């Protein structure tokens, strides 16, 4: 199986050396049958994913269930072992590290999980949960560790005296704060946030999003923010990578992605988000059918069976589209979209492609909001 190799790795900004560089990451899970566990197939959960995360940056990984976004996050941290590919963190080859070096590296890379209920040990006090990392990495002991735990709890907006309480005494939002304090305890540079606010109510979700942003600003943290909620991603991310069936199909800066999505799947995904603006009647791209099984992905472009691109043809089911830079910093995997030299406006002027704005009142709203903030009304 040849995976699409990117022509050049999608880089962040020309100047910043990436903190994390992931290249052609692959994770296949074997499908076993029978008493002898004969391997009869492979679930291609992650199938050749490449991206960079710069220091202090938030890269969001979005996509629907089963697209491989969480698997990617876990493979990067080696919570699961990748099948192939490379992960470099601060110049170190993460996938080649031995157990001792890996443990040392975990000080730099942490994770916040989605479910605040199952990710905290119910038999440990939250103080003990936050303190565990300090002990393992020999960062603080005794009274110094106690003081550090209290300080961490305060930083995430919890009262220090809560240290002696157990997880069941807290609400979902408070538990998520504990999870964040635990991740912060070892002073990492990079945190994988795996759907950190998906299980929370909207008002509590806003508190946790604000907290994550404050911590990033104060500590220069880099986030790999895994989420399916495109509104939250739009708010928190610097750049966004859209995944579909184990591959990145589009990667761009947040404004470019939300206003000029190139890949037809991204367009459909964005058009499906309900806009909290009554009266905005949208033309929706309704995708037919479901996401195909990653055990048996379609040939060529994995999105082609559901794609509604007017130029779709037999080539789409034959050629695996490479992730190409279609516009500066804007990468997309679609052989039917012209490369970088042609802008959307030029395409529209030429009457060539149906403009995505036709489907995307959200993009129009986005632009209007940008215009109104950059040109304040003279009052």
């Amino acid at each position, binding site marked *: 199986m040849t995976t699409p190799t990117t022509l050049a790795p999608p880089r962040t900004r020309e100047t910043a050396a990436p903190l994390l560089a992931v290249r052609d990451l692959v994770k296949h899970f074997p499908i076993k049958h029978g008493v002898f566990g004969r391997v009869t197939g492979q679930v291609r959960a992650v199938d050749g994913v490449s991206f960079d995360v710069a220091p202090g940056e938030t890269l969001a990984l979005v996509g*629907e269930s089963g697209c491989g976004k969480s698997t990617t996050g876990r493979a990067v941290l080696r919570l699961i072992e990748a099948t192939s590919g490379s992960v470099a963190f601060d110049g170190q080859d993460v996938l080649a590290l031995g157990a001792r070096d890996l443990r040392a590296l975990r000080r730099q890379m942490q994770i916040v999980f989605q479910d605040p209920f199952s990710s905290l040990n119910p038999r440990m006090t939250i103080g003990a949960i936050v303190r565990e990392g300090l002990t393992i990495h020999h960062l603080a002991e005794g009274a110094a560790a106690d003081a550090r735990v209290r300080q961490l709890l305060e930083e995430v*907006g919890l009262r220090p005296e809560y240290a002696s309480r157990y997880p069941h005494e807290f609400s979902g939002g408070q538990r998520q704060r504990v999870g964040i304090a635990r991740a912060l305890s070892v002073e990492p540079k990079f945190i994988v946030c795996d759907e950190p606010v998906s299980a929370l*109510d*909207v008002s*509590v979700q*806003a508190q946790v999003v604000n907290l994550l942003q404050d911590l990033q600003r104060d500590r220069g943290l880099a986030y790999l923010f895994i989420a399916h909620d495109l509104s939250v991603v739009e708010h928190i991310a610097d750049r966004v990578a859209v995944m579909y069936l184990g591959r990145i199909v589009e990667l761009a800066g947040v404004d470019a992605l939300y206003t000029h999505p190139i890949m037809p799947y991204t367009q459909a995904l964005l058009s499906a988000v309900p806009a909290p603006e009554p009266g905005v009647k949208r033309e*929706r791209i309704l995708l037919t059918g479901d996401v195909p099984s990653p055990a048996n992905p379609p040939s060529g472009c994995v999105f082609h069976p559901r794609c509604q691109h007017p130029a779709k043809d037999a080539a789409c089911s034959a050629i695996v589209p490479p992730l190409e830079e279609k516009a500066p910093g804007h990468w997309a995997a679609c052989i039917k979209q012209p490369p970088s030299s042609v802008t959307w406006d030029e395409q529209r002027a030429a009457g060539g492609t149906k403009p995505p704005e036709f489907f995307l009142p959200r993009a129009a709203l*986005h632009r209007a909001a940008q215009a109104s*903030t950059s040109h304040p009304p003279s009052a």
Partner: protein
Amino acid sequence: MTEPLLELDDLRTYFYTDTGVARAVDGVSFRVNAGETVGIVGESGCGKSVTALSILRLVRPPGRIEPGSHIRFEGTDLMALDEHEMQKIRGNRIAMVFQEPMTALNPVFTIGDQIAEVARIHAGMSRREAWAKAVEMLTLVGMPAAAQRAGEYPHQLSGGMRQRVVIAMALVMNPALVIADEPTTALDVTIQAQILELMADLTRRLGTSVLLITHDLGVVAENCARVIVMYAGEVVEEATTATLFDAAHHPYTEGLLGAMPRVGGDAERLATIPGTVPPPTAWPTGCRFHDRCPYAWDRCAREHPPLYQIGGGHVSRCHLAEEPERRAHPHPPVAAELGAA
């Protein structure tokens, strides 16, 4: 004025637990007219799902619908019906679509059998007729190759397809009212769009009223004509969707709208509501939102606000209706000082 299809009057559903009486639904009144789609929004624990279960009288002990609660549906007082009569209403005149389609379907029967069962019980159809009806319903909800898929089991279907089956089951008897409790929360956004489109299309064609329970204000904005906002077991605001989004009156509604990441809402911070929904065994005295409210004053802790009339069809449970000048002076709420949630 025409008779509403459904009218709740002072619905109170309490749960008698070891830790005290949980007043999950505490004096809820609203109406749903024929052919209308009404949204109920609120966060976890505000009582929106218990309201739905109460309408169908599916509340189990230790829960109880309190005497004095009235649920009128098509002119009948549902509270006065016995269990047998109530069963004729459920699935027949009022149907329910649940959040998690896997638990709403029986894993050991085929989907065709499960839809046919509704037709056999409520319409007295023969097996053959009922099966034909099931296939017809599956076609209606856009199931490809419906005749074959009818013989499949729920585990063979994707989440979106299962939810289509649940909707097919709900619509078999052409009910007057469908209660949809977070029907798309468990689904991906592109599948959510398919399902909401399908529900809107079918209910428009069949003239069905929908009570759409959700926490997603985006879903409300696109699907509902009118919205009811619940907090701590009560209705705190009710308005047309356009009014609610443009001119929300209640500070809780204001907070919910502000907490939602908005389109193009550049790097600014999201507004938050400090604290969390209080436990239903101990609703705060006075206004139940006062300790999280940025406008609260002494009156709010003391006096429980009634639903004030703000405009035509717009009501709000907030004393600001009488003292609007207080809105000019927001301050950190009490809950903010106790340490955030």
